[in-house]
Structure formats: structure tokens, C-alpha cells
């Protein structure tokens, strides 16, 4: 099938490198980080064709370098952005436009944030969920929504029992406080062979290998509760040959219909899973 609408062309300021997206249901807007131009674009919900964004966040005050992931909090009128190169989560006013400073930033050793590839917000419980990868912590980190600066996460889901390795987008269902994560591979992200324009050294590869569990296999959609903490496996999982998942990097939710959508870069496909129990507050309630 063909897509119903396509937003594309130079006038949109979009690029071929976009790893996050959010739809703001209250204000009917689409927000997208553009990694290769250090920008956040906001479109009308019904945008189509070579339609320009209605707002652009870009410039020296923004501190953005390579924003990769985004979430919108329509309750508190905020846009949250994970930046893998700035090693930070920035929070902007939802209506921010132009070269504006973030309202808050989470950054520093205590946060454990490094390669921030997923961010989500639970406006009901006032929490931020980050999916971040580093040699020390490959995991899901939660923060208070209004945390700022170099603060420790409230909880850290990480460790061999979690199965967390090479993941990307994270989503939260505010109705149940459940975290949904798209993991592309059971193996940690392999070390890219270059540092800028020069090959890395054998010692760097050896260090990366030592940090790996060595586990391999196709990815999954995993579900945790937002108050889970420590080296704990997911409470629910979609993984296996019948699921058709190879390397899911994107996940979106439709709690009303009990559906989970997985976008799979491995098979260039998306899949809809009917799993109403994942959205049932009474299900998966305890370990």
C-alpha cells in the first residue's frame, strides 16, 4: 500500500536522518527532530506535501547538536528532546520557535545519560523516561518531570536480566504507567568503525567487546512498569519468528484499541499487535 500522505521536499526542512517523532493529540501537531541540522520541526497535524513547519527550534541558544528523539507533554505544554551528541535531554516550551534556550536540561555524570536514543513523558505521574546507552549503563532511566541539571535518575532498569542492548524508541502509556520499548537487537550496538573521519584503534574495539554480553538475536518490544527498578526482565514481550520482528526501532501505542505498532527497520515494515492486556491496569500488576 502507499502512504496516505507524505510530507517531503526541501521546503519542509526534513532530512533523510530522522529518528524520532511525536504527535500532540491535544494541539494536533507533529514534532520531529532533524539530527543532521540540529533542529526541531513542528508541523500541523494534517500537513502534507512540501509544506513548511509552523515552528522551528534551531540556533546557538538551543544547545541542540544532534537531536534524535522527542516527546510532547500537552498537559504541561513542553517538548522534550533527547540529543545523542549533546548527551542530554532538553525541555522546551511547546510554543518555542527560533533560537530559544531550553527551559531545563538533564546532563552530567549523575544522570547516566549518554547515547539518549529514546525519550517519553508521563504527564500523569510527572515522570520522564529515557532510553540511554553507554558502556556503563544500557538501560531505561526515569526522572522527575521537573528535574534539571546533573541529577541522579529515580530508577534505573539495566542489567543482564533486562535483556536491554541495542534499543531505540520508548513510549509510555499514561493510563497504566507502562513503558514500551523497541529494541533492535539482543546484541549491544556494535562499535562504529570510525571516530569522525579516522578508523578506531584495535584497543577501542577490544574495550567495546569486553563491555558486551555477547548475546545475539533479533529485537523485541518490551514492557515494564514505570516504577520498575534494577536488573529486572520485562513484564511482557513481543519477540519471536511469528512476530516477524527483526530489528524494531519504533514503537507507538493505541491504548483505546489495545494496539501496539512496531516499526521494523530490519524488514522495512510495520506491524500491528492486538494486545489489550498490555493496557489493562489490572494485568501485569505484580511480579
Amino acid at each position, binding site marked *: 500500500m502507499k502512504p496516505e500522505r507524505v510530507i517531503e521536499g*526541501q521546503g519542509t526542512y526534513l532530512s533523510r536522518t530522522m529518528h524520532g*517523532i511525536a*504527535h500532540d493529540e491535544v494541539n494536533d501537531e507533529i514534532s520531529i527532530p532533524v539530527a543532521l541540522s540540529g533542529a526541531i520541526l513542528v508541523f500541523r497535524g494534517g500537513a502534507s506535501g512540501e509544506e513548511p513547519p509552523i515552528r522551528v527550534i534551531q540556533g546557538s541558544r538551543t544547545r541542540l547538536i544532534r537531536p534524535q528523539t522527542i516527546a510532547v507533554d500537552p498537559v504541561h505544554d513542553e517538548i522534550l528532546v533527547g540529543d545523542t551528541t549533546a548527551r542530554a535531554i532538553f525541555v522546551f516550551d511547546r510554543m518555542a520557535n527560533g533560537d530559544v534556550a531550553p527551559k531545563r536540561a538533564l546532563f552530567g555524570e549523575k544522570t547516566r545519560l549518554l547515547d539518549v536514543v529514546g525519550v517519553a513523558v508521563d504527564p500523569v505521574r510527572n515522570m520522564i523516561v529515557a532510553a540511554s546507552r553507554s*558502556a556503563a549503563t544500557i538501560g531505561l532511566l526515569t526522572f522527575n518531570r521537573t528535574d534539571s541539571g546533573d541529577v541522579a535518575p529515580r530508577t534505573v532498569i539495566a542489567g543482564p536480566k533486562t535483556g536491554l542492548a541495542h534499543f531505540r524508541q520508548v513510549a509510555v502509556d499514561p493510563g497504566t504507567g507502562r513503558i514500551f520499548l523497541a529494541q533492535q537487537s539482543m546484541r549491544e550496538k556494535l562499535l562504529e568503525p570510525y571516530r569522525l573521519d579516522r578508523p578506531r584503534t584495535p584497543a577501542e574495539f577490544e574495550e567495546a567487546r569486553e563491555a558486551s554480553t555477547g548475546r545475539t538475536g533479533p529485537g523485541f518490544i518490551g514492557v515494564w512498569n514505570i516504577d520498575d527498578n534494577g536488573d529486572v*526482565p520485562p513484564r511482557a514481550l*513481543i519477540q519471536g519468528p511469528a512476530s516477524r520482528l527483526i530489528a524494531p526501532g519504533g514503537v507507538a501505542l493505541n491504548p483505546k484499541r489495545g494496539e501496539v505498532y512496531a516499526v521494523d527497520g530490519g524488514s522495512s515494515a510495520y506491524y500491528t499487535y492486538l494486545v489489550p492486556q498490555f493496557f489493562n491496569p489490572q494485568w501485569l500488576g505484580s511480579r
Partner: protein
Amino acid sequence: MRTRLLLMGVAAAWLLADRWEPPITADSLPLALVGSREPTICLMPNRNEYAQVRGGGAGHDIGGEPRTTGEWAPADVHGGDVMPARTVFDPYPTFDGVAVDSEAGRTFFTDSSLSSVLSYPATAGANSRETTEHETRVMGPDTGIGFVAGMDVDPQRREVYAVNNDGGGVVVFGYDQTGPVRPVRQLETPHQSWDVSISARRNEVAISVQQLSGIVIYRRGASDMQPPLRSIRGYSTGLADPHGLDFDDSRNELVVANHGNWTELRPYSPYDRLSHEPQSYQPGRFEPPSIKVFDASAGGDVRPLRSIAGARTGLNWPMGVEVDASRDEIIVANYGDSSVRVFRRSASGDVEPVRMIKGDRTQIVGPVDVTVDPTRDELWVANYADHSAVVFDRDASGNATPKRIVRNAPEGTPALAFTNASAAAYDSKRDALIVPN
């Protein structure tokens, strides 16, 4: 303040109201939706192997024994091997790069959707509605082909170069290799490499790298972790999110298409530690799309010899480029307006193309690459947004009808044009899934 609190309350109530309606209970979930662990319906063979090169980036694997063994996940985890209730998937190839060896009479394509390299006779195609039969198809986990983008051929060595955009470097195959074969060699290149051009005159291979906003140049025949001879990158180059590139051996130049996105590149991997050193910061910016022309021997932070950019050029997401030396032209696959734009080789500044192929009769839909067959005086255009490539007379112009069409699916098959996506959002107002591609 009260108004703001009221709005927040209304929004919170809206978020939570009427949202969970169990259409069926957990216990009544149809068993048909829970599959067995039989791999029979898997779309790809050897999923485990594919996962290392498709979707999310490959890297340099130095091997070694796995240090963790055993099954995961624990048995008490709910869910499991759940079958999708609906699937959106395109089972046909998506053409990306195209290259012709005119003497050998072969045309090659990369396929970014199903991760393969296909070849056809240079005379292939017709005005038929049917799928065109390919001569060879390299596909499978051992090939090292992942999210593949641009390509080139080396007629002297009868080799095909295919560039992996999301990790996996450049893989090189012999013309006649087909099936699930290993490449004759692989060259590690920086992440987000997009296109490749081979210079017989210089005995070099140039690779465009999007996130580097630069070009890396290797000795022809380089493999594995051999470093580049030099790179072209830096503020003076004007390079910004480069895509297609082509050596012009007759003038000793290198032509590069730019999308115009620029941001700093700093170490960003999970293995690069947090830096505490104060760093200068240049914010991201949008620049106009452009065609930059460099001296082919250039290296470092050098200015281009010429630059084609501006409103008159009509450049709009310029992808593949081809230098047609005998006609003194630079040909551009202009994805954004589904056109092919042709400029004089010496063009500079805000100039109009000397000719353009555009219109409903051309059947150009989202072109990603172009190439010239000098022997047959033909121009090939690879469509990304349609299951086809279209072949024109070399001097075609306007709303021209293609001479032949090479189809990788029956005519009318919708092209999902959905490759290497890694994020999604659900739009409840329109009951739509939005995916950045």
C-alpha cells in the same frame, strides 16, 4: 494561573478519559494470535544474522566467543511470539543506486528495501506491465548488504560497489556473483556513507558521508580497516549532508550533491565517554541545496571550485549525480520535485538547468539516482517512490516518454517507500500512524 490550571486539568482529563476499553479480555485473546516458535512464516531467512546488518546499524565485529549464553527471556514473562494482527510490508525491491557498464552491457541497482544488488542487461526493459527479469541478484545475510544506498561499477575489474548507509561500510562483488554470496571484499567507512564513485584515472574511490558533511577518499582496492588517503571536510568546503557524487576524470574534478543540513559532528557513540572539556559550539543550520565541484586531488578544509545553488536551479533534495563528459553536462536526480535536472559542467551560482526531464509522461517518481549509457546513448533514472527505473534518450528533455521501463514489481504495485524507519507516532485524530522515513 487559574486558567492555566483549568486547562491542564482539562487536558489531563482528556488524556485519561474513556481510554481503556477492553475490546476483549486478556484471557480471551485468540490463540491464533500467539504463534509457535516455528520460523516458517518469517519473511527473512536467518533472522538472527540479518539483525546484525539491517535495522539500526552494523559495526565492526572483531569476533570472539559470546560471553553470555542461554535462553532469554525468562519463562514467566507475558506475551511472547505474538503474531501481528496487521502487517504493512512491501515484498518487492526498492531501487536506490544505479550504475551502467556500457561496454559489458550490464546495469546494476541497489535495493534499499530488501537489501540486495540486482543486475539487468543494459537493453532490459520494455513497455510491459510485467516485472522485468533480473540477471543476477545478490541477497542474504552473508552478503553484508544492509540499508544500502549508492553504488558504482569498476569496468576494469568487473566489480560492483554498494554502500551501506547505516553501518556495514562498502561491499564489493564481482559482476557475475549471484545469490547469498560473500563479497569479494569489504571496506569499513564512516557511518552514514551514502554514495561511491570510482576514478580509474586516479585509482581512487570517493565516498560521501552525510553526518561528516564530508568526503573520504581511498585507494582503489582498499579493504577492511584501511584508512582513507584523505578527506574533504570543514567549514570552507560548504559540504552539508552530501549525497550523490561522481568523479569527472576528464577534468580531474569531483562533483557532489548536498541536501544542505549541517550540524557539528562530535564523538557520539555509547562507547565514547562524556566529555568534560569545554568545547566551542556551532549550532545546526539549513543551507540551500547545492552541487559542489572540487579539484579531485583536494583534501582538508578546501573551498569548492564551483557551486551551483539558488532558486533558479530548482534543486530540491538532489540525490545521485552523473557527469556526462562528452555532452559537457552534470545530471542530477532531483528527488524533491520528481525531476532530472541537467546543468553545464562549468555552471556556477544561481543558474537554471540547461534542460530538465519532468512531467506526468516521464514516469519519474522520487528519483534517487541517474546514470548514462554512452554506448546506447541512454539515460537511466532509478525511482525510489515507484517500483521502476525509466530509460530515456540521452538528450531527452521536458515531459518526455521513457523509451523503456524496468519494473521490479508488476505495474501499479504501490511502493511503500519505507526503508530503515526507526520511529513512529500514532495520530488518534486521523487514526493514522506517522513514520519518519
